[in-house]
């Protein structure tokens, strides 16, 4: 069996969905070109723009910042890293440390904001005292936090480290839960957030991102969120990975199928603007403002406190 890259060097990766084998040099080169191609194809970044990178310190956002920092020099855009400290003890600290180290190494400004600063309480305490699942609080509040920071820092775009696996999982989850509106909103065009979200890694599988991080010897946090096991995404991820094992390329097919479906679907009742904060919302008030109201009530009743 051929274990060599086309260039003759020893292969380190076999990309099953295309049948190609790559050595270290050819893989990292391919990876960086793929990110640049995705940005160009979807017109994600223009010269002179101020781009915020949502940096968690995990592999995806760390890889994204590395690749974008090289592109920023040649394409002429500005980069700022932003991190949100949700307040997950034993997990977030390491990510923030890795994020700070990455930014120092690349000479990129890092802005960190915590849930405590923004909402008056940490996620751990919300989970302990609240009725919703951890991801329901975290997903909504983190999205809102990123919007607030993007507005404060006058960012033109917000770059997220979402990869092909994340996108395929989201498509399937929205199908499973019958959420056609969210499925439609994923296309992006209908949502006018303060800073447009871009996903330059959306055409790269999670495995290739991890491989790039290892081959480039990047420092990142590989911890798993303690709340991740409790969500549907975990089960969808496992299902998709098993399917991909037997049918290489199936994750790309999910995305391609979704793109075709979305083009032909019209959804009633487009995105509104939240009456309280002005951010995009499905109803008159966005979910973040509704959650904030619940948090304030709990605090006033003494059921939730800032202190431990």
């Amino acid at each position, binding site marked *: 069996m051929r*274990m060599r890259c086309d260039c003759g060097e020893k292969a380190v990766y076999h990309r099953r969905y295309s049948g190609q084998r790559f050595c270290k040099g050819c893989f990292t080169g391919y990876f960086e070109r793929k990110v640049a191609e995705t940005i160009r194809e979807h017109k994600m970044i223009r010269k002179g723009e101020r781009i915020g990178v949502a940096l968690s310190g995990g592999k995806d956002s760390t890889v994204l910042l590395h690749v974008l920092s090289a592109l920023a020099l040649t394409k002429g855009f500005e980069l700022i890293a932003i991190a949100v400290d949700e307040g997950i003890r034993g997990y977030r600290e390491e990510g923030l440390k890795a994020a700070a180290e990455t930014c120092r190494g690349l000479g990129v400004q890092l802005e960190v904001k915590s849930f405590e600063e923004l909402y008056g309480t940490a996620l751990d305490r919300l989970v302990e005292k609240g009725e919703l699942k951890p991801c329901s609080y975290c997903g909504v509040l983190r999205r809102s936090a990123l919007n607030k920071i993007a507005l404060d820092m006058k960012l033109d775009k917000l770059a997220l480290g979402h990869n092909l696996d994340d996108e395929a999982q989201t498509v399937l989850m929205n199908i499973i839960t019958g959420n056609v509106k969210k499925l439609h909103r994923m296309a992006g065009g209908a949502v006018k957030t303060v800073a447009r979200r871009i996903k330059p890694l959306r055409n790269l599988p999670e495995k290739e991102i991890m491989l790039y991080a290892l081959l480039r010897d990047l420092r990142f946090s590989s911890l798993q969120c303690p709340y*991740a096991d409790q969500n549907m995404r975990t089960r969808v991820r496992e299902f998709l990975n098993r399917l991909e*094992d037997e049918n290489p390329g199936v994750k790309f097919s999910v995305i391609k199928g979704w793109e075709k479906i979305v083009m032909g679907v019209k959804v009633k009742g487009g995105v509104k603007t939240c009456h309280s904060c002005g951010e995009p919302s499905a109803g008159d008030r966005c979910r973040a403002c509704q959650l904030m109201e619940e948090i304030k009530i709990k605090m006033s009743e003494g059921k939730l406190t800032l202190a431990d």
Partner: protein
Amino acid sequence: MKVKVNGEVLELPWTKASVKQLISFMGWSRGEVLACVNGEVTVEDEELKEGDDVKLIPVFSGG
């Protein structure tokens, strides 16, 4: 054959095995882990040798 997997010596029920067989034996899908054999990232078609030191690195992290 015996190989070391993530620090523990493991007896595989074969005399010859590839990295992909080991991944499946350990209960992983190939999209879920990267394999390093004797410190080097390796393609999954690679045959294992007696005593190889294998690290299976989960690609998923975060939440």
